[in-house]
C-alpha cells in the first residue's frame, strides 16, 4: 500500500481491479441434461453459461490453495479407452480442484483387455455408484450408449470421429478471451477434417455463436456434406486463412487412416502446412490454435507453433477451468433430473 498515497484517483485505480458493474445475469443458470454428450445438444445460452462459469473457475487456479470443496463426496470415473495425456490430465486436475474423488481407468489396464464389452464395463462401474463418468472411446456414439444405461452423468471426452465437446468449449473460451467476442469472427480450421471430432464440435459451437467458419484440407479429407453445417469448405488453404481472426489447425490422424489420403506428409506440409508465409495472409492480430498433439512439420511449422501468435499452451491451461465449469454445472443438473 505504501507508495500509493495520492489523495486523488487512488480509489479509482483500485476499483478498476475488480468488476465495477454487476455482471449481467445469464439467460440460463443451469444445464438441462445430466450429460454432456456433444455441443449439438447445447443451446447458445447454455454454451455462454459454461464459458461464464469457467471465467470464475479460472481464478481458483491462481490461488495458493487450488481447491474448493464444491464436489466433496462426489465420485468421478475417468474411463479412457483411447490414449490421452492432455484431456485425461486436464479432467483429473479439474475434478481434484473441485474436491471430487477421482479414479482413472485406462483400457489397457482394465478388464477390457480380457474381452469385456463397453456396456458390461459401464454396468459394473455403475454398480459402484459413481456420480459422473468421463468417457473417451474410439467409437462414435459410445457416450450416447452409456448415457442411456447409466444413472451417472456422462461427459464425452471424445468419441470416435463424432464430438469432443470440452475441447470446443475451451477453444471458444480462449478465442473469447483474446477477441472479446465470437460472433462475426473469421475462423479458419485447417487439417484432417474427415477424422476430427474436434472439428465437428467446433463447427457446431462456432456456428451457433455466429462465427464465420471456413474449413480447409485435402479433398480426400473433406467430410461429405460439410457445407450443410453452415461452414465454407475450400481446398485452397490461402483462401481460408485470408483475413482470418483465428487459425485452428487439426492433427493429421494417421492412426485413423486406412488407405492413402495424400501422397506424403512432406507434400501435405507443402500444400496445407501452416507456415509463417501463409500466416501473413491472416489478420495482424490472428491467433493460432491447435488441440494437440501437434505434428510439427506436418500441419504446423515449428516457428508458427512456438511463435508470438500461438495460444496453444493457453488452450491447455484454459481446459482445466472449462472442465471445472462443466463438472460443476452437470452435478447440479443431475439433481434436477432425479427429482
Amino acid at each position, binding site marked *: *500500500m505504501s507508495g500509493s498515497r495520492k489523495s486523488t484517483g487512488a480509489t479509482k485505480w483500485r476499483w478498476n481491479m475488480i468488476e465495477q458493474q454487476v455482471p449481467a445475469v445469464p439467460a440460463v443458470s443451469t444445464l438441462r441434461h445430466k450429460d454432456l454428450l456433444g455441443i449439438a445438444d447445447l443451446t447458445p445460452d447454455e454454451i455462454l453459461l459454461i464459458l461464464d462459469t469457467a471465467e470464475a473457475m479460472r481464478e481458483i487456479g491462481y490461488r495458493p490453495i487450488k481447491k474448493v470443496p464444491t464436489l466433496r463426496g462426489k465420485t468421478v470415473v475417468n474411463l479412457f479407452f483411447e490414449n490421452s495425456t492432455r484431456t485425461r490430465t486436464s479432467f483429473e486436475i479439474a475434478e481434484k480442484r473441485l474436491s471430487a474423488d477421482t479414479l482413472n481407468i485406462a483400457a489397457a489396464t482394465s478388464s477390457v483387455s480380457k474381452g469385456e464389452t463397453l456396456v458390461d464395463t459401464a454396468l459394473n462401474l455403475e454398480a459402484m455408484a459413481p456420480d459422473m463418468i468421463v468417457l473417451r472411446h474410439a467409437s462414435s456414439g459410445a457416450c450416447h450408449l452409456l448415457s442411456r444405461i447409466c444413472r451417472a452423468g456422462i461427459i464425452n471426452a471424445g468419441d470416435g470421429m463424432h464430438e469432443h465437446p470440452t475441447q470446443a468449449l475451451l477453444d471458444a473460451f480462449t478465442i473469447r478471451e483474446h477477441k472479446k467476442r465470437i460472433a462475426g469472427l473469421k475462423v479458419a480450421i485447417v487439417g484432417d477434417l474427415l477424422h476430427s471430432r474436434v472439428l465437428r464440435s467446433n463447427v457446431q459451437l462456432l456456428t451457433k455463436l455466429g462465427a464465420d467458419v471456413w474449413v480447409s484440407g485435402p479433398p480426400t479429407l473433406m467430410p461429405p456434406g460439410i457445407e450443410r453445417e453452415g461452414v465454407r469448405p475450400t481446398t485452397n488453404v490461402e483462401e481460408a486463412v485470408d483475413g482470418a481472426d483465428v487459425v485452428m489447425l487439426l492433427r493429421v490422424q494417421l492412426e485413423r487412416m486406412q488407405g492413402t489420403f495424400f501422397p506424403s506428409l512432406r507434400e501435405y506440409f507443402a500444400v496445407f502446412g501452416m507456415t509463417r508465409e501463409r500466416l501473413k495472409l491472416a489478420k495482424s492480430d490472428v491467433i493460432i490454435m491447435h488441440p494437440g498433439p501437434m505434428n510439427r512439420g506436418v500441419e504446423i511449422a515449428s516457428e508458427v507453433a512456438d511463435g508470438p501468435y500461438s495460444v496453444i499452451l493457453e488452450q491447455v491451461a484454459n481446459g482445466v477451468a472449462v472442465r471445472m465449469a462443466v463438472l460443476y454445472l452437470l452435478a447440479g443438473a443431475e439433481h434436477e433430473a432425479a427429482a
Partner: protein
Amino acid sequence: MPVVMDADRMGRTLTRIAHEILERNRGIENVALVGIRTRGVIIARRLAHSLHHITGEPVPTGALDITLYRDDLMRHPVGPQPLVRKTEIPFSIDNQKILLVDDVLYTGRTIRAALDALIDFGRPKEIQLIVLVDRGHRELPIKADYVGKNVPTSLKESVHVRLTEIDGSDEVAVEHD
C-alpha cells in the same frame, strides 16, 4: 412494505461504521476490505471510499464469491445450480486484518462459507465482520463486529437491501412473504 432504513440513514450508518473501523483498528494500517458478492461488494466499496476520505489513504478491496463453498450445494432436491461469479482479491491477505462485508446477516451460513473461502487465500491476522443489517435467527455461532442496524424479524419476513448501483436506490425494507 415498511422501510427500515432510507438513503440518508444508510449513508450516515456507513460513515459511522467507517469511524468504528478506525477506532477499533487504530487506523487502517494492514486493513483490507473483502465484500461478499453481490451487495456486500458494493457496501465494501462505499466503506473503502469513506475510509479513504477520512484518512487520505486507500484501502485494498476485494470481492468474494462464496457459491462453491455453500453447504446447501448439491443438496437441493430441485432447483438450478447457483451461478458462480468471479472472486477477485488482488492482494495478499496474509497477516492483514480482513474486514468481511455483507448486506444481511441471517443464519450465518454465508459467513461460514466466506470464512472457509478466505482461509484458502492465506492466513489473515484477523477477520472482522461488517453487516448492514442483522436480522437475527442465527443457525451457527457467528456474530458481527460492526452492525448497521439490528432489525428484529420473523422467519416469515424477508429483508431486502437495495443499493443504487444495482437497484437504482438506497433502502432497506422488510417484506412479509
